[in-house]
């Protein structure tokens, strides 16, 4: 299925599974028959720093990088990074889908800066016409599955045009195997089916 160009900026903290989330979105779009390109952060920043991936779906994208302020959606796995992602990459009227985990940045722990609140994010979304999807669950078998919980909400709410659970399942089967695959598929299906 061909749709227009759709750019997703994925952001979180090194160690949260940003790479798996972005690779799943990208491969799911490929399974849906759309052209894809993108890029992940590798190397140094993975050590607990800000990590971002660019996922570009549909024809007409040349650079692997999304232009700042032009993303159709920001998918974030942490509250401060959701705030960073929407302020730098999300266009007005776009969608912010974020898992509301809090991993305090250094300056917050050093008492130099205040923590970001979910209320502040909500207010900024309203002011900019951004659709806000906040995800938080206390029933996850493993905090490392927060990325799957967010992916499932993205599927359930049809936030990416042309992308369904069937495509995400196919992508996960490309990337995982054994018990890990089954655990992730089970969570994805449980959430999508409500």
């Amino acid at each position, binding site marked *: 299925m061909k749709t227009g160009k759709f750019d997703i900026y994925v952001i979180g903290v090194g160690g949260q599974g940003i790479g798996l989330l972005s690779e799943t979105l990208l491969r799911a779009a490929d399974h849906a028959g759309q052209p*894809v390109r993108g*890029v992940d952060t*590798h*190397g140094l920043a993975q050590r607990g720093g800000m990590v971002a991936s660019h996922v570009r779906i549909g024809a007409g994208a040349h650079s692997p990088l999304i*232009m700042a302020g032009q993303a159709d959606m920001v998918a974030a796995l942490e509250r401060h990074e959701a705030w*960073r992602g929407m302020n*730098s990459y999300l*266009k*007005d009227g776009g969608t912010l889908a974020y898992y509301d985990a809090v991993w305090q940045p250094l300056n*917050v722990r050093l008492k130099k800066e205040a923590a970001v609140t979910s209320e502040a994010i909500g207010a900024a979304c309203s002011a900019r016409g951004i659709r806000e999807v906040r995800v938080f669950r206390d029933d996850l078998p493993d905090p490392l599955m927060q990325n799957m919980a967010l992916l499932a909400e993205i599927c359930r709410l049809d936030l990416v045009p042309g992308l369904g659970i069937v495509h995400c399942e196919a992508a996960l089967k490309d990337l995982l195997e054994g018990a890990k695959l089954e655990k992730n598929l089970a969570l994805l299906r449980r959430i999508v089916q409500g």
Partner: protein
Amino acid sequence: MKDMGEMLLRREGFSEVVIGNTALVRAMIEAGVGVVTSYPGSPTPEIASAIASIPAGLRPFYFEFSVNEKVATEVAFGAALNGRLAVVFFKSVGLNVAADTFVQLPLMEITGGMVVVLGDDPGAHSSQNEQDNRHFARLAYLPVFEPATAAETYSMFKEAAALARSRKTAVILRLTTHVCHAKEKVAFAPFAAARKDDGPRFDVRNGPYVPIAAAVFPMKRRALEKLEQFREYADDSPWNLVFSHGNKKRGIIACGTAFLALNDVLAVAGDRRPDLLKLGFSHPLPRRLLADFLSQHEQVLVLEELDDIMENEIRALAQLQGLAAVIIGKQDIGDWIGEYTPERVAAKLDKVWPGLLPARPETGRDRPAVTPRPPQLCPGCGHRSAFFAIKKALAAGDITVADIGCHSLGFLPPYQMGQVLLCMGASTATASGLALANAERRVLAFLGDSTFFHAGIPGIINAVFNRHNLTLVIMENGTTAMTGHQEHPGTGKNFNGPTAAIPLRRVLESLGVANIREVDAYSQKQLTAMVTAALAEEGFKVIIARHPCMLKHVREQKRRGAWKGVPVSVNQEKCRRIHECVSVFACPSYQLEDQGDVRVQEDLCIGDGSCLQTCPAGAIETRGPGGEK
């Protein structure tokens, strides 16, 4: 799950979503490469990960992580003299280490052919500078391919390899971070595996191979003649392409990812779009093609990430040929700095040709700044424990010198350990110099174990030889952690299997280091006492602060079901809000609540227990293996 190793060896053609680094490995296999060498460094380690995905017995070529980039280049060179198509790959600054060897390559008849794959890093995503290695290509008279995408990386490597082999030379494939890591679907060709060939091919008659005194000149002449032949190739290369939009007035010359960003940005320019010249083979420049392009446009923008190398050569060409086109290139210092992302390219076009692009909604204005999140030492990292302990032994004026590796992150607050950082292996000698003509401030240097073997040893020999006065702390974590946990000569394993470990302490002893202490980095009191004692002594003192990289260790233990982490919590009744855990020891697992309470973020705590000894109030408690108190 898709099996990358199976895919890379597949005989029939196929299409797959891959990053540039993976596409490169398929190209090596199709091209019949015999020997590949490297030293780990971002953005290139995933090339080795792709090689590692092929079971050792099935790998169609030999691969090693050498001890450093210079050695890697020499091993590849030797293999190429033996008639094998050879590849060496490493990061941007690795070429500085390899330079002594690299600049000799053009003088040699490299019978097997050699491809030097460089991972440049515009934007300094994971490097200590963003040096433009196209300068080195000019210095060494070597040709350069510059792919922009994973598909181009694949195709250009095969072309570079064929040219290297047929012209008996080295060819550079210059990648950048967002070429190495960019993903797209690449169509791969079928290939027929070559028969294994262990026949020796080195023949001194292919030389001369000894450039001494007057023998240098004919060798240099041959190198320059080969470069001229590549200049002819440049004009006819399928990788140098004009994209005409019928614009007689404006043209743009670009290469690499800047060309891709340009295409994104120009999508909204409609019929005002300038003509484009994309240079995929960028050294030597295609003079005929460029002269034609310059003569067909009134104004030509050279859109060039990092330095003004093409710009100056194109200006010289225009002057030589009397071409009237106005050439626009760098306009201010900002144009030399950072990656040419789509927004940077749009801003540059706005500056050069106002009105070419329609007005865009302003982004980012009036939006609150977000606190930065720099990379940091992982929960349980032995370096954190070491920095916390060492800091207690230092006086206010003491000087600390860092080296390259995870421990470089110690320069960040709250540790602020490592006030100077130069490059791989530079800490000991830099500290030696800081201690000269310095009667009061004591000097302490840090060095990682992989870096010790890479470039750290000469500085240590010099400290012994010239009797320097400093304390060196070797932070031994048993791996090359920063680049993804590669083995090093001290670990007892290489890329291909077990090997004799070279113990750090024995190396130090044999170099004549007389004052050596060893301690587990988690033994904070002992480490503080050792540093206090060492700083009070004269001469060259070494402390080996050892703890395994906990990211690697815990992963391996968990895989075996053997990890016995004991997560911690803060006893709120005992806690006196001193905040030693959250603001001084500063493990990221500790988080501050609004009222000054401290909470342990359970997603992050690995249960290493290195924090238990840090709380003056004794409020940090273990919760037992299951999490119960």
